[in-house]
């Protein structure tokens, strides 16, 4: 690993318990500038919790977190976050435009009104996810995939240095998924991306590095995952499709 690379996230010996149940155990991870890291693992393996630790939404019971060299609470305006579930009310009185503008809060701050720059940034972000024409629609009336695009635009409009995506393609239809990954491809030139997913196939095409998480983290700073690691993560044999120069299929015996 090149030591000159800028370390964006450092997690050291992170331990998180929900009540008596351990969710993360001894997780140590460094994420560097322009990394595009995919985190895979079974449901309940702690993927979302790990993102929330980086965001400062979940306080670890022990261990050390730093993001951009500071505690996460101090750098929130530099983080973009797209969460897995949105529990908002379908009748909530907000338009697509209102929701995207929320992303500019970190740039404008408390008490201030949105200015012309904020408006231009929101238009650009909506164009990028091809939702500009829907700007006036009520957010709850859109399809799941369209909503997801709006939430991605909201994360982008904040011009974050680190983008955290929790199952971002879960409710997007397949054609849109390819477009979405291409968008990430372009974005990763200017920022660092961490994406949580259980779609091993898709993730292995687009990301540069893969970590496996099931309470414990298996990560070697590369894209290589061995059947042994997958098996340790999923606690059962997993079908692994490897992409790259030598396409082949590794299927461990049951």
């Amino acid at each position, binding site marked *: 690993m090149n030591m000159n690379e800028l370390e964006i996230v450092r997690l050291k010996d992170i331990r998180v318990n929900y009540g008596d149940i351990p969710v993360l155990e001894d997780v140590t991870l460094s994420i560097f500038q322009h990394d595009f890291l995919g985190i895979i693992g079974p449901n309940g393996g702690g993927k979302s919790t790990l993102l929330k630790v980086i965001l400062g939404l979940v306080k670890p019971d022990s261990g050390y977190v730093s993001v951009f060299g500071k505690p996460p609470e101090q750098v929130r305006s530099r983080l973009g976050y797209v969460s897995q579930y949105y529990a908002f009310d379908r009748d909530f009185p907000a338009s697509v435009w209102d929701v995207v503008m*929320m992303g500019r809060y970190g740039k404008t701050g*408390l008490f201030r009104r949105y200015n012309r720059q904020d408006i231009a940034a929101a238009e650009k972000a909506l164009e990028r996810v091809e939702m500009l024409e829907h700007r006036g629609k009520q957010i709850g009336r859109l399809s799941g995939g369209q909503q997801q695009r709006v939430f991605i635009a909201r994360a982008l409009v904040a011009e974050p240095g680190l983008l955290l995506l929790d199952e971002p393609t879960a409710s997007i239809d397949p054609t849109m998924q390819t477009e979405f990954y291409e968008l990430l491809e372009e974005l990763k030139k200017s920022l660092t991306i961490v994406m949580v997913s259980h779609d091993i196939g898709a993730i292995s095409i687009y990301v540069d590095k893969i970590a496996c998480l099931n309470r414990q983290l298996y990560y070697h700073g590369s894209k290589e995952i061995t059947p042994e690691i997958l098996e340790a993560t999923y606690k059962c044999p997993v079908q692994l499709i490897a992409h790259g120069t030598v396409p082949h299929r590794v299927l461990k015996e049951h």
Partner: protein
Amino acid sequence: MLEALQYEFMRNALMAGLLAAVACGIVGVYVVVKRIVFISGGIAHASFGGIGLGYFLGINPIIGALFFSLASGLAIGGITRKSRLPADTAIGIIWALGMALGVVFIALTPGYAPDLMSYLFGNILTVPMSDILLMLALDAVIIGIVAVLYKEYLILSFDEEYATAIGMPVEKLYLLLLAMIALTVVVLIRVVGMILVIALLTFPAAMARQFTHNMKTMMLLSVLFGFLFTLGGLWLSYVLKLPSGATIILLGGTVLAISFGVSKLHLKRNKIKETA
């Protein structure tokens, strides 16, 4: 109704209705979209402790209610945020404690507690000028806060986790929102009484929500509906010789039920059209 306007108590009643509509219209929108109707109910009922304290100390019970509703709002907010108690448990505790204190204070006050019923069930016809001025001041505070923090409260009511993730002072804003609800409760006590406050916090906003998906428009419509309900209820109570507070609520509830019914029919008809 027009000839009734020559009486000062009628003019005061109209003014009180308008001021109540402004407060409940604006704050009611947050109460409804953020689903904190029962926190508001808890704050309203706990304010009875302050009314009792007012009688006991011989001061205006409304001033007592102002302090009690603020304190109970902050207590409910503080308990739910800082302890592991679920919100409805905290609401139940504060709701009952406030009312119990009110009963004890009134029992300790020598003699008879005049006007007690009007604090419980409201009487828009007996609002004195001093209370109207207080309502005006509280309305101004509420409008000021919402004007300055509109975008913050939109984010907070939409998605609190996101609000935290982008670094908003969520806890302080939430407590300030509960304080605004407390002020609204005080504004509304004179009009519909502390027991019925919860209705004026929800009916106009629920009504307005059917017509718009813009929060500012929803607030304006909600103020309008609140004013129509109080005005219409006042007129009905005058004609039918019924208590004003309860009449206002019954009118609002009826209109709301009819409009829900109509929009449901409308939906059904559209569905039939689509399948045909």
